């Protein structure tokens, strides 16, 4: 039995508002890396080991970037800058995927990574201006191949897929938490409230530098912060329409 299907109306990326957004206050960030650790715990991100890390195959969905100004010994550190997938409204990673494994979610307005579609061409990582994608060069999570992670395997998050070799992955804005909050709200017959849930990195941040929420609702904390005069979008000139706003120079 087939029903009449309405094809959703096509919209330019610039006309879309985005749904979930994040604000990172680099003036508050102390570079403690709690977000990096929390993200790895929440999203089953493997540690790759010494040898692969030396090949530059470390896997993180969020990292703390730091920059220098001046020549040694007159070195001045700039702010720490947590860098994660910017969930671009007009994402450079999406059109280059030959398998449609990285697609734009119509309902959540996020960049999805569909692990079971990914064939591991790594085009998306090459085309990502923020360099936030990481590739599974080996079966890092398989206790049969890496006996040393057997104990770590006991703390896998059951809500997140354990990725296998040859699959690209990246920050999902903790979509499992989004779904959980939406499911709870729906079971109670209400909308998801602002601040009801947050991403793992924002939850772990001791300085409250990371704020997460709906950016299409003007009254939420995250959209008010995002529209402050201190807001900066990274590599905005590329037209990627990032959904992460950085606050600096306060």
């Amino acid at each position, binding site marked *: 039995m087939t*029903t009449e299907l*309405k094809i959703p109306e096509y919209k330019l990326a610039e006309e879309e508002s985005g749904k979930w957004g994040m604000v990172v206050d680099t003036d508050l960030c102390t570079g403690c890396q709690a977000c990096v650790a929390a993200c790895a715990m929440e999203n089953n991100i493997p540690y790759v080991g010494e040898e692969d890390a030396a090949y530059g195959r470390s896997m993180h969905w969020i990292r703390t970037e730091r920059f220098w100004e001046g020549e040694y010994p007159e070195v001045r550190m700039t702010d720490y800058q947590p860098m994660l997938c910017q969930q671009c409204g007009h994402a450079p990673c999406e059109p280059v995927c030959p398998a449609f494994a990285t697609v734009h979610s*119509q309902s959540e307005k996020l960049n999805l990574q569909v*692990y*079971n579609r990914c064939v591991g061409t790594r085009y998306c990582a090459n085309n990502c201006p923020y360099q936030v994608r990481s590739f599974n060069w080996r079966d890092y999570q398989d206790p049969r191949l890496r006996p040393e992670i057997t104990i770590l395997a006991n703390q896998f998050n059951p*809500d997140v*897929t354990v990725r296998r070799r040859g699959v690209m992955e990246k920050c*999902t804005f903790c979509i499992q938490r989004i*779904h959980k909050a939406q499911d709870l709200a*729906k079971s109670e017959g209400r909308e998801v409230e602002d601040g009801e849930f947050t991403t793992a990195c924002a939850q772990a941040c001791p300085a409250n530098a990371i704020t997460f929420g709906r950016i299409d609702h003007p009254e939420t904390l995250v959209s008010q912060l995002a529209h402050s005069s201190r807001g900066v979008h990274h590599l905005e000139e590329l037209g990627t329409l990032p959904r992460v706003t950085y606050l600096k120079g306060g």
Partner: protein
Amino acid sequence: MVRRLFEWVMSPMGWIAVVIVALSVFSLAAFGIYRSQQALKPQPIQFPHNLHVGLGVQCLYCHPGAARGPSSGLPTINKCWGCHQQIAKTQTSDKLKPLRDAMASGANFVWVPVAKVPDFVHFNHRPHIAAGLNCENCHGDMSQVEIAENPQVMNMGWCLSCHKERAGGDEEKFIKLTDCGTCHY
């Protein structure tokens, strides 16, 4: 020696032999794949679903998670024992010996899950029940089967055919129900 073998392989009889070997290897592999997809390990006890449903036990009595969370859950033997300790036949029946033994030794049943989805699919029972689906819509009529089995292959086409139908003409619902990120993350 190698040369003679090569000449024999190139002769008509040799060709036929090679084809026969290739065909048998292929069919063995196909049979193996078929078997590995079909056969389930035996359950720890030959649990008759039809009998229990016939006695009026609700699905949610043993699988209560289905109404409130992602996983419906499989019962522990304490749940079995809660009813069965009051039934005289429990002490005499041969079929219930595994239950008596497990209860005496403090072991638990390790059920073999029947309705499974791969690791990269995140299925949640709650919204499906809330949407008005009944257990038998996906799991078949359990009053007709003894050992639980899948009435159909649970693949993505099967999920999507129902999702599209359920969306009706509602555009927002259709987008949500066919979005990759709804199940894969």
